[in-house]
C-alpha cells in the first residue's frame, strides 16, 4: 500500500488541489506535521523541567499545599482546579468548533465555516481570559516568575502554551477575515486544515498540562 493511501472514510474530492509531490503528500501538511513533532519535543522539555523541579521550592506559594507569607497572609494551595477544569473544557469545545469549521470549508458550507471558525477564535480568547485571571490571582498571592522553582517552571510552561493559543487565535481570525474578503474554496481547505492541526495540538498539550500540573498533587519529597 502506498504511504499516502487513506484507510478510513475520507473521500477524495474530484478536483486536484495540489501539484503532484514525490511522496504523494501535500508538502504543507507534511511539513506541518513535522513541525508539530518538533513542538512535542519543545513542550516535552518544558514538562520534563516542571516534573524535575516539582515539590522542590524552598519557599511558597506552593501548588498543592498551604503557605504563610512573611506578612502573615495564608495562601492555601494556589492552583484553582475547578476554574481550570472549565477552561480546559472550553479548549476542548474549541477543538470541536475547529473540526466543524473545517467540515464547513470542505463542503463549501460558508455559513457553517464562518460561524464555527469565529466561535473557535472566541473560545480561544475565552481560554486566554481564564489564563489571564489565573495568572493575576497567582501574582496577587505572591507567586511570580522569580519567586520559587514552582513559579519559574509553571509560568514558563503555561506561558509558552498561552503564547501558542494567542498565535492560534490570530491565525483563526486571519482565516475568518480572509474568507469574508474572498471565500476559501474546498480545493484550498488544506490551509484551514493546517490551522486546525495547530489548534488541536494546542488542545492536546493542555490535556497533558492539566493532568500532570493541576490534578496530580505534589508530595513533600516531590514524588507522586
Amino acid at each position, binding site marked *: 500500500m502506498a504511504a499516502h493511501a487513506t484507510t478510513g472514510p475520507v473521500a477524495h474530492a474530484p478536483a*486536484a488541489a495540489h501539484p503532484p509531490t514525490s511522496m504523494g503528500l501535500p508538502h504543507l501538511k507534511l511539513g506541518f506535521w513535522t513541525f508539530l513533532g518538533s513542538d512535542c519535543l519543545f513542550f516535552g522539555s518544558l514538562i520534563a523541567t516542571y516534573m524535575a523541579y516539582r515539590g522542590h521550592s524552598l519557599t511558597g506559594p506552593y501548588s498543592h499545599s498551604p503557605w504563610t507569607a512573611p506578612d502573615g497572609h495564608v495562601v492555601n494551595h494556589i492552583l484553582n482546579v475547578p476554574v481550570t477544569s472549565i477552561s480546559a473544557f472550553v479548549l476542548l469545545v474549541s477543538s470541536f468548533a475547529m473540526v466543524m469549521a473545517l467540515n464547513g470549508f470542505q463542503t463549501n458550507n460558508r455559513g457553517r465555516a464562518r460561524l464555527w471558525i469565529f466561535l473557535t477564535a472566541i473560545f480561544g480568547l475565552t481560554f486566554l481570559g481564564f489564563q489571564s485571571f489565573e495568572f493575576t490571582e497567582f501574582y496577587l498571592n505572591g507567586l511570580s516568575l522569580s519567586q520559587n522553582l514552582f513559579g519559574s517552571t509553571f509560568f514558563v510552561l503555561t506561558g509558552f502554551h498561552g503564547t501558542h493559543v494567542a498565535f492560534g487565535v490570530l491565525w483563526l481570525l486571519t482565516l475568518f477575515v480572509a474568507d469574508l474578503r474572498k471565500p476559501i474554496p474546498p480545493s484550498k481547505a488544506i490551509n484551514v486544515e493546517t490551522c486546525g492541526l495547530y489548534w488541536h495540538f494546542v488542545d492536546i498539550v493542555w490535556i497533558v498540562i492539566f493532568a500532570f500540573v493541576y490534578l496530580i498533587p505534589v508530595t513533600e519529597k516531590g514524588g507522586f
Partner: protein
Amino acid sequence: MEAHAHAPAPGAVRNYILVLCILGVLTFLECMTYFIPWFQEHRQVLFVAISIMGTVKFGLVVAFYMHLRHDAVFYREVFIIPLVLAIVITIIVTMLTSIRLIPYQHL
C-alpha cells in the same frame, strides 16, 4: 495526479459530537478525582487514573479531530516518533531527579 483535498465522510459530524461528549465526561471525571478524598489518600491510583484518562483524551483528539486515524500513515510516523521521544525524555528526567539521597529542602 493525486488529489489531496479531502471531503468529510457522511456521519463525520455525529462522530465529532460523540467525541466531544466523551471528552466532556472524562474531563468531569478528572476534575472529580481532585475532590474525592480516597484518591488523595491513594496517590499512585490517582496517578494511574489521571494518566489513563489523559491518554484517552489525547488519543481521541489526535485520532478523530486531527484525523490521524484515517489519514496517511507517514503523518503518524512524523508525529508519533518525536512524541514517544518526548515522553521517554520526560520519564527519564523525572526518574533521575526523583532518585536522590538528600532532598533540596535540607541542603
